């Protein structure tokens, strides 16, 4: 059992919320064949309930695993299980790391610096990300808490400045496109909520009750995603349908006094969010791989992982089909379904079965039979 409680529950709440908000800043990528629509703000209000259901397998696993991370819990079933789960989750966190950087790089080269090389930002970002990952989980979460507060304040500020620009005639029935439209929106917000997978590795290291932090995150995420979706829709209306990054466009409309075009604030919040997420995902990837690689190779391994992530992020940036895939809700749903539901359920069921079997044998032995 990992008894090193190095992460505060508040830090976990802030990280999860900020990570989810960062994803919602690219709320709708219209080449994923889902454009911002009337059902999105309603789907956002349903998000807390969805997150509450999504976390159940994780909660069960953490309980039967007696507070172990998913990799350590899998080892209880055997070395083979341990290796499979370690490899699987290492892959997940690696994908999440380069996807976060790749999305951001795609955004920058689509909107702010179209002439920039697709490799520039991945190479640049992965350097400090690698350094942060080397510092370890506690350092990342501490820095992340500070950046999260700053980033969330920025996002709230931009949202507040957009209130006078809202035209409520842009908002009409969320069921205008039928229940199918709502279902697609719920699927989209769920697909973008994969950050909860970090609980499988981080929850055992949390001081205090991780369940409260998660509950706070679920509520905050619902409010935040609703704020972003509703504001973007109310300000831009149908214009958001033809924007790659609608919230960025909306932020460009905002002004405070003589300060026009607050999209730079949006970009700043996103950079911080990407930095913290990518650093944590790389660190968690290493923690999974430490089942195979000795600790003395940690630095080299993280450098290699960061370099590979930069290459993969550059590929996303430079290729529209690849970028589309990283936003596809179906693919994301399948991935999160496997990693947040199926794998934890299978492992928890296995551990539960093993416990009962051991308890039965113990009882048999005790009764002398």
């Amino acid at each position, binding site marked *: 059992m990992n008894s090193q409680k190095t992460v505060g529950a508040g830090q976990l709440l802030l990280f999860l919320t900020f990570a989810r908000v960062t994803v919602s800043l690219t709320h709708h990528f219209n080449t994923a064949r889902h454009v911002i629509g009337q059902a999105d703000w309603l789907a956002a209000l349903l998000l807390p309930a969805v997150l509450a259901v999504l976390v159940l397998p994780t909660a069960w696993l953490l309980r039967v695993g007696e507070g172990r991370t998913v990799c350590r819990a899998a080892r209880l079933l055997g070395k083979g299980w341990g290796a499979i789960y370690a490899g699987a989750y290492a892959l997940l966190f690696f994908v999440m790391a380069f996807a976060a950087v790749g999305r951001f790089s795609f955004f920058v080269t689509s909107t702010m610096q179209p002439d920039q090389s697709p490799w520039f930002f991945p190479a640049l970002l992965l350097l400090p990300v690698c350094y942060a990952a080397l510092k370890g989980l506690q350092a990342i979460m501490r820095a992340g808490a500070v950046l999260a507060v700053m980033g969330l304040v920025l996002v709230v500020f931009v949202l507040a400045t957009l209130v006078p620009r809202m035209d409520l005639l842009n908002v009409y029935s969320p069921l205008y496109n039928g229940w199918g439209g709502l279902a697609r929106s719920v699927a989209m917000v769920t697909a973008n909520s994969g950050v909860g997978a970090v609980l499988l590795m981080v929850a055992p290291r949390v001081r205090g009750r991780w369940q409260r932090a998660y509950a706070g995150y679920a509520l905050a995420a619902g409010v935040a995603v609703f704020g972003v979706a509703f504001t973007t829709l109310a300000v831009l*209306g149908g214009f958001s349908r033809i924007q790659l990054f609608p919230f960025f466009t909306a932020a460009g409309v905002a002004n405070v006094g003589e300060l026009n075009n607050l999209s730079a604030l949006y970009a700043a919040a996103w950079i911080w969010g990407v930095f913290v997420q990518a650093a944590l995902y790389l660190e968690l990837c290493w923690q999974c791989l430490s089942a195979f690689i000795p600790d003395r190779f940690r630095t080299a391994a993280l450098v290699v992982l960061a370099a590979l992530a930069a290459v993969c992020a550059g590929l996303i940036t430079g290729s529209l089909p690849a970028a589309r895939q990283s936003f596809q809700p179906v693919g994301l749903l399948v991935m999160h379904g496997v990693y947040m539901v199926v794998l934890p359920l299978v492992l928890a069921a296995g551990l539960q079965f093993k416990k009962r079997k051991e308890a039965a044998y113990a009882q048999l032995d005790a009764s002398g039979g």
Partner: protein
Amino acid sequence: MRNWMQAAVSLLLAAALCGCGAPVPLKEKLIVEGIAVDAAEAGYKATVQAYSPAAEGGSRLFQATGGTVFEALRNIDVQVGKQAYYSDARVILLSEACLRAGLWAALDFFIRSSALPAGVPVAATVGPAADLFAIESEAGDQPAAVVANLLQVNRSGTVCGALYRVGACLQTDAADPALPLLGTVQKQGKRYARPAGILCFKGQTPCTRLSRGEEWAFRWLCGYADDRAYPLTFRGTPYTVTLHRVDRTWRAAWEGDRPAVHIALAVACDIAEAASAHKVAAAELAAFARALEADMARRVTRTLARVFAERRCDVFDLGRVLRQRQPARFKGLADWRQEMPRCRVTCAVTANVARVGQGAVTE
């Protein structure tokens, strides 16, 4: 070692993410302050007003033609040898002539460009759009700034003709776009910009112009600010009224098989002037308010009859109101434009005259 690494990473981030590493240096950029698009023989003629500290007045005009708007703008880059930087553009002007080819064709590049702020005002011009960049300013401002200020009125609320508002109208069948219309006027050998009404579209095609008188109704119904003095003749005496706020509410219904929209305007106003120092008695105020209400309601009704019912042009948000309040019925319509003449629209105005001017009220 650790401190060096931290310092190196911080410096690298600061240098790289502040934009100093942009591929095109600032001195090689053409900082565009305003864009004007006119029709040309083989497509479009683009005129840009660009910042040029060495030039007289601090800006210069550049012109080029092309088969499309983007091609014309790119030809300016080629001509000048600099890459255009649109983030500081304050206004986009489109001549009525170039709009005959379609609003989307004229705006396509501007809507797609991530460099242009989505809130930049777009206006149509009566004559050549480039003429608006040759206007005078008593304050010595650049033409693009003068035109942008003209369009933004008192900067309160949303600007009529903001790029994203026009783009949103182009994405829906429940509303038609409208652009402020500008013209020029000659005074003592100098050219000045003047507002010339509103240009209404039916889909992408120009449909009709709202006169300056009809523009009142348009701004009230769409929630745009208007700083003009409102003229009213009451009991033979001309007055001017300041309309501080016009709040609109709607009620949408289906009366049998035809849609109906009932508009209520709540007006807060002051009497700014009363001719020949006429004193407004307290007892007259109620009648004055009723006269103002009737005048405003008449103006709205006449404008709607001509533009909405007769020309089938919905720049007044009526379709959007129906879509919001009666979504199922609105969705069931085959074509909203065919329903417009059948749609019953009523308008009721309530006016609150807050002030009549110092010493102007008798016992």
